[in-house]
């Protein structure tokens, strides 16, 4: 009997998901959805507590296929927070669009479970299990608005391309297994000391990275992103933009640093390539977008490009200190990215006129006059995403770029800075539209209490990070230590 304690949060979440499904079926249909939704959020929050409680240093179980450590705790906390908030934010939207069914929160919980397994995966098979559980849940909720062709199209596109990426990933895994004889990360880590690896492993690594790059929507595996973001129901997009990205990047980090750490010089080349391509495409392609969800899609592509710089540093740098600086920068970036994006999507979810969603950037015109508070927080998020001090987003970029400079990856740092200048254009254009254009009709009021809470908390994090950055910084530092001992 394997030791179940390290996996207790996952087990709890799995059981809770089943129970919620049952409850949804047997409860009074009038109130079932609402109750399941709130309970799901509660379950996710409880899981955070369990994650924190059961983890004590690094522990493995299930024959070394499952690992839990401070890195996992940090990332799982981010994922669970993002998922819980997404569940809370989605309720109002789903109700108004008549698609509020109890399956939705349950699917989100299952996706979160998949993500947690991804983060804790210490074996290629476990990795694939978690990834597929997550992906299957996401395919379904992407097309949750079945009557809408756009939503159905989004789900289908995501599914087909996701299947392709899974194929690439599996092919890569089998190549690696074929040339090394193992799927366990711990064993793989001991095989390539000195950086020597058979060509088959390298090719396998490229395929695995392609599969991961699809999940984090890095160029050139990003093509699904704008279409799916635009087509999927907005709360789903909000969810897509945050939790799966964090999970996939964490998975990527653990696989590359944990299993293939000695091949850093090889895989970091791939990372550098997709990072540069993502930053540039994210900056330029967003400029002409009229739809704010599409714009956010390109924005998240760009952000993933910046975050990947951290991983590139972790692979390419010569000394351990710089490598862990890169990883720490990556984690800080992810945490800040999560708060900025949740806040921004909360604002997007509030863009409703007469109970209908509006998604055009022009619809924000004159928001500073019709709803100054919302305009202010959205402006703060935009400035933060553009990386303008003293907001949180600036520090995220700062740590990443500093690490890149330390690792002498000057091309990455310079392209990063330049592309963030280009990207600043479309972020600040939104501010301009809100503050300087003639007002459109006001958005629907009142704003529900949970949305207000989300906006206040995320806004406070973005504004006040400069004052009290310690929780995020020290969390990221602890998490890095688990992945890079010494």
């Amino acid at each position, binding site marked *: 009997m394997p030791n179940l304690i390290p996996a207790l949060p996952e087990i709890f979440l799995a059981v809770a998901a089943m129970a919620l499904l049952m409850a949804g079926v047997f409860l009074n249909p009038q109130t079932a959805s609402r109750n399941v939704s709130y309970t799901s959020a509660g379950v996710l929050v409880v899981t955070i507590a369990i994650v924190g409680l059961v983890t004590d240093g690094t522990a493995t179980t299930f024959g070394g296929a499952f690992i839990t450590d401070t890195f996992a705790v940090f990332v799982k906390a981010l994922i669970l927070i993002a998922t819980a908030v997404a569940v809370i934010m989605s309720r109002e939207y789903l109700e108004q669009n008549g698609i509020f069914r109890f399956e939705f929160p349950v699917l989100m919980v299952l996706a979160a479970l998949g993500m947690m397994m991804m983060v804790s995966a210490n074996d290629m098979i476990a990795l694939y299990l978690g990834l597929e559980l997550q992906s299957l849940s996401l395919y379904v909720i992407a097309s949750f608005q079945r009557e809408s062709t756009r939503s159905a199209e989004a789900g289908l596109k995501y599914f087909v391309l996701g299947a392709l990426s899974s194929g690439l990933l599996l092919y890569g895994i089998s190549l690696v297994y074929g040339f090394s004889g193992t799927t366990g990360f711990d064993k793989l880590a001991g095989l390539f000391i000195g950086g020597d690896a058979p060509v088959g492993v390298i090719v396998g690594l490229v395929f695995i990275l392609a599969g991961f790059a699809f999940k984090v929507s890095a160029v050139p595996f990003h093509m699904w992103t704008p279409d799916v973001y635009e087509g999927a129901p907005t709360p789903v997009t909000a969810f897509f933009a945050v939790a799966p990205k964090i999970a996939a990047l964490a998975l990527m980090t653990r696989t590359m640093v944990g299993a293939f750490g000695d091949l850093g010089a090889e895989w970091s080349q791939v990372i550098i390539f997709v990072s540069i391509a993502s930053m540039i495409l994210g900056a330029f392609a*967003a400029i002409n977008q009229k739809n704010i969800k599409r714009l956010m899609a390109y924005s998240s592509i760009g952000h993933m490009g910046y975050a990947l710089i951290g991983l590139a540093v972790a692979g390419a740098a010569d000394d351990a200190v710089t490598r862990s600086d890169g990883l720490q920068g990556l984690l800080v970036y992810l945490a800040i990215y999560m708060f900025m994006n949740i806040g921004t999507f909360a604002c997007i979810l509030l863009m409703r006129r007469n109970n209908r969603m509006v998604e055009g950037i022009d619809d924000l015109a004159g928001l500073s006059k019709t709803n100054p508070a919302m305009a202010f927080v959205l402006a703060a998020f935009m400035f933060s995403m553009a990386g303008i001090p003293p907001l949180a987003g600036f520090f995220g970029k700062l740590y990443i770029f500093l690490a890149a400079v330390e690792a002498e990856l000057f091309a990455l740092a310079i392209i990063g800075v330049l592309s963030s200048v280009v990207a600043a254009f479309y972020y600040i254009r939104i501010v301009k539209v809100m503050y300087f254009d003639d007002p459109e009709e006001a958005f629907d009021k009142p704003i529900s209490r949970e949305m207000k809470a989300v906006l206040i908390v995320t806004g406070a994090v973005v504004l006040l990070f400069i004052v009290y950055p310690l929780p995020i910084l020290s969390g990221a530092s602890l998490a890095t230590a688990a992945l890079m001992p010494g």
Partner: protein
Amino acid sequence: MYLAAVFLPLLGGLIAGSLSFIPDGGEKERKHKLDRAAQLITCGGMLLAAVAALVTFISVVLGGETGALEIFTWIDSGSMELSWELRADTLSLVMVLMVTVVSSMIHIYSVGYMSHDHSIPRFQSYLSLFTFFMLMLVTSNNLVQMFFGWEGVGLMSYLLIGFWFERPSACAAAIKAFVVNRVGDFGFALGIFATFLMFDTINFDVIFGLAEAQADQTINVFSGEFHALTVICLLLFVGAMGKSAQLGLHTWLPDAMEGPTPVSALIHAATMVTAGVFMVARLSPLFEHSDVALTVVTIVGASTAIFAATIGCVQNDIKRVIAYSTCSQLGYMFFALGVSAYSAGIFHLVTHAFFKALLFLGAGSVIHAMSDEQDMRKMGGLYKLIPVTYVMMWIGSLALAGVWPFAGFFSKDIVLEAAWGAHSAVGQYAFWLGIAAAFLTAFYSWRLLIMTFHGKPRADEVTMAHVHESPKVMLLPLMVLSVGAIFAGLGLYNWFVGAGTVDFWGNAIFVLEGHDALENAHHVPLWVKYLPLVVGLAGIAMAYVFYMFAPGIPAAIASTFKGVHRFLLNKWYFDELYDFLFVKPAFRLGHGLWKGGDGQVIDGVGPDGIAAATRNLARRAAALQSGFLYHYAFAMLLGVAILVTWFLVTGG
């Protein structure tokens, strides 16, 4: 107390300034109340500051409690550490007392003079802030705080000269004052940098302590080795030349007459122009170690004295005559400093502050009476109509011309005697030019008096019918200042330059051994002592001959020496020269850079070009997104193929 003396003007200025933002709603009554409040606050603040200054003066100078009052640390960066500090020594306190007293008189006078203006709170606020910055300058204990005050004074002069910003000429004059001062300030800033380079600090006490040790150091300028202290002193002196309107950088001063008359009085008497003189005196421990710098100071000062006096003789605008007179008197102060008679320079500065403020405010009173007429050719015959002003102008002129027992007599004499007492070639140069300037000073002062007050009225009847004596609120400050103009010389002589001078100045002024011009000044031949008075009286007499008894002479001279007259009338063509040398080329260069450099090259390639390229790229990037699934899948496979190929080719 010291704090109150320095910061009350700031407080008053800020309060009055914020009053000017309160809308009066177009109501006369309300506006009147606001104006009155601003006047009360600023005048009250200044008067209290003057009292506080007097108390501090007594405790510091007479009680000997010198030192520095630290307010808080300002900059602490590397080896550079400096604080906001109020330096308490004789030199600072003399300046503080003089500034606050003269400035408070000007404040009170302004209540009457500006009574018809529609932005009184703004004006009063500027006056107070001007005074505050000047106080910061004279109380500073390091070069950077001095620079703060220096720049603040420059800023306020800009605002005050351009106070009537509806007039294009006022705006132009304000800009000119600011720009010309910038040239000087650049020198000052470089001087501060050089000082920091040499001494690794900019605190006065430390610098002064180290000056002796650094006296033989050299510094590399444009790959030549120069005597370090000379370089520093000359750079700082460029700053002083700008603020104190010395030859070359004097062009802003006459134009500054565009400001309201109380501003002219404030700039010329209490603040701004005396800053340069003060600075050189304050830095006497540095200047003493550089004979070259002292020589330059002497020559520039003496040349300015005669140069400005010649121009003063032909000007027709009553304020411009006095303005050139200031320029000339500043020259006196500088050559006194240049021969190491610092206390004589400061002495002349103080007495000059009183009688120059008196003259300006008197001229203001005349202008007020003449319905804003400033041209002396359109005045005349006023002495019966405005007798008090007339008397005041006499007192001021007597003091300026250096007639015993008025203030100017004592200070100008000691300055000239010190120049003689220097026993050097430059000393002689300064002495003889000074004597000549003294003659011209007396001449143009009485020319002004006679043209303004005597003879037949040359104004039209409407104006003449309007002529009236100024209100008491304007006359009272005149009287206070006239007391200073009469007694300041006699009363302060002993302390400043007489037997009590060593005790009085203490450590505030440093004079190297052997630089004993001041001591020698007390032992000059008798004719040297009397010569300034004699030429002064001769100047007065000549003015009477020319303008009262034989009014044809000036015109005859002017037509005989047409060239010289025009040369003087055009102020030695300095403005034209600068226009040709700097202004026009700068305009051409600016225009070229703007149209060609910025518009075509930078905008075309830079912002516009990059923006166009970005938009183009953005269009293409967005076009990649076709919406077709197989395109997307193809892109992914292509990506994998490229990456795999890359590794196979490079060999991993």
